[in-house]
């Protein structure tokens, strides 16, 4: 090779520049979890560094350290090569670090100017708020963002995109040299994203260092020069985006190839277990009928608001249907409450784990044993040893990662919390398990584990109803798919007829 006389490319002078901000060997330890493990990153003036990683990889922990909310257990932060620490959020702002969050809290009833300068309003020499300065500086900031919004307009009169600009103006109203953008494009349309990127280019020209957090690769390649990939709390790769193909970044992020994501096992489908006839709800769904067989995974697909979760919750007894019949293994049954459903062998893993599925401050084993208390206790008295044994059995089966069975569930990661919810229901030895968005908010590694486990359950003869908004998941896992549209069944599709196109067409009603 001719690297001995490598020609200087356009990146070399930038790389030689000194970073504005450097983090060295940062570790953040929470009870039972090492959220960050010896992470080092550098941010350069006039450059965008993309921070890439799955949920739970440690991105938001890093943001919280940089904005003075957490104090790291190990490592140091340097600004202009001088060590610095952020004992408070204000200290981080004073040091020139500002953050634009996914959802910045703004106040509808206040004006644009008030929102921008809330908490750090300029004062007159009498100590009162200097409105003239607020308005002129707000105007200048908005102008810098290529927007001419009047600073005296109330926020509630602005569009979503305009509010976003106000949030950015607020972040820039402090003298910031380091700007963190935490998934800033999550709620924006393509046009608004283009506008945002023009602003980012402007910030680059001013020599600010930008840390840009996003899931979307096309955006990252469009706007960023450098990248850092986080996985399991470690920086597993960093470099220049120009010389790194996307496959490489995906591989760093996931830690393995994406091919084996859906470990669907061929299962012999048995006799019908659950039959639903004409199930209806006063407002959410109407006249839903389907059959579920032993060992079968029935996918339920549809747009948000199609009535999928409501259907599942009424099968589980949370809401009462206004019409319809159920038969379980040929016997007609009526489900009036969730305890009826559990007794009949129908269980439900809710979409919102923290809100509906778990008592987060309580120990893992007490959450796991909750629906099985009748079995673990003796004549109404708790038997901790039985509870622990039951929890251990399912923790091991699900490969749960936890410091101890007595730690609060709230200290676990999203994927492990989901394992606790699933384990808690498996312990009741159900016939039918309803999974509502089983992998929502779970990182890809745990997703595969959950999928593998769902397949195993089906192979053991459990019948599974799986609600999901993710097409790959529905296509990869289901034996049949029920598509719902506006509360009605838009069709049931067998596995050999499944395709993304067919499902989307049925879900949206576009012919």
């Amino acid at each position: 090779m001719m690297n001995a006389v490598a020609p200087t490319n356009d990146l070399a002078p930038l790389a030689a520049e000194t970073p504005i901000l450097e983090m060295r060997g940062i570790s953040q330890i929470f009870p039972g979890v090492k959220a960050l493990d010896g992470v080092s990153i550098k941010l350069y003036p006039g450059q965008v560094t993309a921070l890439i990683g799955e949920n739970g990889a440690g991105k938001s922990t890093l943001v919280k350290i940089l904005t003075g909310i957490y104090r790291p257990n190990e490592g140091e932060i340097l600004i202009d090569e001088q060590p610095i620490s952020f004992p408070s959020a204000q200290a981080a702002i004073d040091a020139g670090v500002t953050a634009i969050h996914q959802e910045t809290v703004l106040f509808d009833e206040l004006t644009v100017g008030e929102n921008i300068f809330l908490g750090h309003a300029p004062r007159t020499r009498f100590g009162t708020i200097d409105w003239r300065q607020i308005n002129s500086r707000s105007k200048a900031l908005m102008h810098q963002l290529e927007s001419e919004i009047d600073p005296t307009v109330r926020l509630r009169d602005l569009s979503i995109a305009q509010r976003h600009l106000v949030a950015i103006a607020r972040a820039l109203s402090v003298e910031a040299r380091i700007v963190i953008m935490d998934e800033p494009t999550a709620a924006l349309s393509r046009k608004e994203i283009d506008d945002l990127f023009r602003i980012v280019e402007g910030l680059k020209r001013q020599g600010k260092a930008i840390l840009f957090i996003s899931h979307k690769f096309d955006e990252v390649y469009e706007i960023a020069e450098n990248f850092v990939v986080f996985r399991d709390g470690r920086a597993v790769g960093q470099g220049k985006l120009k010389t790194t193909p996307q496959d490489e970044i995906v591989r760093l992020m996931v830690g393995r190839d994406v091919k084996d994501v859906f470990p669907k096992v061929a299962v012999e489908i048995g006799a019908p277990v659950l039959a639903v006839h004409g199930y209806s709800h006063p407002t959410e769904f109407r006249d839903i009928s389907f059959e579920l067989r032993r060992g079968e995974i029935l996918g339920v697909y549809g747009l948000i608001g199609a009535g999928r979760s409501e259907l599942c919750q009424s099968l589980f007894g949370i809401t009462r249907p206004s019409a319809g019949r159920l038969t379980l293994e040929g016997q007609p049954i009526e489900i009036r409450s969730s305890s009826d459903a559990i007794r009949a062998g129908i269980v439900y893993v809710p979409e919102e784990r923290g809100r509906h599925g778990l008592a987060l401050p309580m120990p893992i084993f007490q959450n796991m044993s909750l629906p099985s208390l009748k079995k673990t206790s003796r004549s109404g008295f708790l038997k901790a040893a039985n509870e622990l044994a039951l929890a251990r059995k399912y923790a091991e089966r699900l490969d749960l990662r936890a410091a101890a069975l007595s730690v609060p569930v709230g200290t676990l990661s999203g994927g492990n919390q989901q394992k606790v919810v699933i384990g808690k229901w498996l312990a009741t030895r159900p016939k039918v398990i309803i999974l509502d968005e089983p992998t929502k908010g779970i990182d890809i590694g745990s997703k595969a584990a959950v999928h593998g486990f769902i397949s195993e359950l089906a192979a053991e003869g459990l019948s599974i109803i799986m609600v999901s908004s993710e097409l790959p998941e529905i296509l990869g896992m289901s034996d049949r798919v029920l598509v719902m549209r506006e509360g009605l069944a838009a069709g049931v599709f067998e596995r050999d007829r499944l395709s993304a196109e067919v499902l989307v067409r049925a879900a949206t009603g576009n012919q």
Partner: protein
Amino acid sequence: MSDVATKRVIPDRLGTKTSRMLASWEVLLFGVAALIFIFNSFASPYFLNAWNLSDATFNFTEKAMIAFAMALLVIAGEIDLSVAAIIALASTAMGAAAQMGIGTPGLVAIGIGTGLLCGAFNGLLVAGLRLPSIVVTIGTMSLFRGISYIVLGDQAYGKYPESFAYFGQGYVAWVFSFEFVLFIGLAIAFAILLHATNFGRQVYVIGNNEFAARFSGIPVERVKFILFLLTGLMAGVAAVCLTSRLGSTRPSIAQGWELEVVTMVVLGGVSILGGAGTIAGVVIAAFVMGLVTFGLGLLNVPGIVMSIFVGLLLIITIAVPIIARRIKEMNR
């Protein structure tokens, strides 16, 4: 790597039993109780006397009986501020019955029955109609005591049968009063109910996450109704003891006790937000409050100062854990 393949063993618990116990609020509170005890015994020569100490227990036994039931209610995320008013109504009912010549067993049944009825009324409104308990019980607080005022006006009932005096004035053995023995018995019963039964576990789950409780098949409304019933029952029992001890009933009986009961519960380490707390903590808190009131009494501190003390205690015990958590987070 091989560490992925080898199965990890998750321990049941972290640390040893003693290390977990030493870090608890109850141990801290016990230390406070011991300090107050030592301080009092130096401050007054009359303190270290078995009979004086026995008298001192009357400062808290009746309130503590209610506090046990209240602790369960607060852990489940609800509250009952009508307990003192229930005492007034139950005592009035017993007084009226005594005027009519009903004997001691009948009076006890009426006292306890009134408590149960009041508790059922609260429970019906909160669990049945799903109304917020703080508003419901502020309402029934006025309602129950109001009935008492209408019946009695500025009168008092004072004619109770002689045998009725045993509950508030009798002694089981040596210095141990009937009330104190009942207090110990109820403490054990409530500790078992909360910490060793499925019902107790359901109470904790409801307090930590009512949604999750409902989604796990727990009959949330039924549990809450039972808790209100239990609180009414204990207020009825306390009414029997208090009326028997005082030997008379005025509509202002047990005025302001709801605050002292809640203070006792919170001082005992029960989270006012629900979901956490122990009966042992409430027992120690009862002793702390009783010892302080008794000590101040021996030092001739007037009653109004004691109410200042109770108010401060309530604020401090709510503030301390929150501030401690903030300091802990700051050191992170």
